[in-house]
């Protein structure tokens, strides 16, 4: 018992000492000697200049220390904020999204890389996260300029028996959404923008900023998704870029038809239209009008 008390005392002392602010030699000296009380004596010994030098040195040290302390309270810059928030959201939603599971290498990285290179998108970094859930089918998270984060559901691609090319085109749609910053613009508000790169030293950290952003992520991914206008623009963008290659364009058309059939026939995916309205409309948007076709016949 004695030993336990003794060890506890030692540990407690060590913790208390460790928590005390570290002081430099100059600061320790300054706290011990009160130069003002021996002013006359110093004057007599012509040491005033030395005292001033010492005081200035301490001031510089203390200024540097304060600067360092203030730096610790920095709110992330925008480019750093999005990767942190993405990963924070993915971690908080790990049990719903079920991304932590064993899976074979589907060869998606090489297939998507090939598609990007074929279309002339070079030096694009991306991270694909496969999900073992039908709750989220596919989605691109906001990018901070480092790498695109693309989520895709394995049950979703399996139920439609999608080829690697079709999955890559699905990812391409999401890549365009991220590139157009559709997701980011729905999360970013004035309060958040004002805080990028700011410093909250001496202020209360506004936790609500994070909580609001997380709620908006949830709403967008699980409930609201994108508008018809946004879908129209993305669909046209993808269609226009794939039109030069009939094989790719046919694959896109085929993919939309497969998704349309799935959402109409499988109750598990009935909410797909709420997130991405709607595959049926997308097919219409990319199909040339009949009178336009008649012109060539």
């Amino acid at each position, binding site marked *: 018992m004695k030993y336990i008390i003794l060890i506890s005392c030692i540990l407690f002392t060590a913790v208390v000492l460790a928590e005390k602010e570290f002081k430099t030699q100059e600061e320790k000296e300054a706290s011990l000697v009160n130069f003002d009380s021996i002013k006359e004596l110093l004057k007599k010994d012509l040491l005033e200049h030395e005292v001033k030098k010492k005081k200035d040195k301490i001031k510089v040290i203390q200024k540097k220390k304060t600067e360092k302390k203030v730096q610790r309270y920095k709110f992330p810059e925008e480019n750093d904020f999005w990767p942190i928030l993405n990963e924070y959201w*993915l971690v*908080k939603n*790990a049990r719903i999204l079920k991304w932590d599971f064993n899976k074979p290498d589907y060869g*998606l990285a090489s297939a998507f*890389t090939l598609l990007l290179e074929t279309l002339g998108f070079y030096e694009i970094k*991306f991270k694909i996260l496969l999900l073992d859930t039908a709750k989220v089918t596919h989605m691109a998270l906001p990018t901070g300029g480092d*790498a695109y984060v693309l989520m895709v559901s394995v049950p979703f691609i399996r139920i439609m028996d999608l080829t690697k090319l079709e999955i890559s085109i699905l990812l391409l749609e999401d890549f365009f959404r991220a590139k157009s910053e559709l997701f980011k613009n729905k999360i970013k508000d004035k309060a958040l923008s004002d805080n990028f790169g700011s410093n909250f030293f001496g202020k209360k950290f506004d936790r609500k900023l994070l909580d609001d952003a997380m709620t908006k992520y949830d709403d967008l991914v699980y409930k609201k998704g994108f508008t018809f206008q946004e879908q129209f623009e993305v669909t046209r963008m993808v269609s226009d870029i794939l039109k030069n290659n009939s094989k790719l364009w046919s694959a896109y058309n085929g993919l939309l038809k497969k998704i349309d059939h799935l959402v109409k026939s499988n109750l598990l995916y009935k909410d797909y239209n709420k997130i991405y309205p709607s595959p049926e409309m997308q097919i219409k948007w990319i199909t040339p009008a009949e009178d336009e076709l008649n012109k060539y016949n």
Partner: protein
Amino acid sequence: MKSCFTLFFLFMAVLAWPKSAPIKSIKYFSMVYGHLHTSALSASSGLTALSCGHPVKILDDPIQTKRGWKYVQVGPHKGFIKEDYLRDKRGNCLQAQYPKFFNYLDLDLTELYFWGRLYDQYVYGKSQVNKR
């Protein structure tokens, strides 16, 4: 004669002592959080958790080292880490740049575990100009 035998046995004991893999270099973990793996597979279980900037001893063990992975020692544990996650210098860790902000994320142990697993689950890729 007796002392000769003792010296000989001591010499043999030193030779027979199991040798630990020699340390090749020191590198630093570069992802926000991560795991030291039991084998050179992303799906393998973790021996210990790491955070960005943690020093890692690279062990020279050609039999165990697999492509894209490094055989390393972290504290008392020996295991595997993806080569891409290691840097020669400590570098800019987000936790070091924004320490107080990270404190406010208020992560529990399970969340720290998941954050480390996230990097094992990503499928990475990059399109290049000069490949075609």
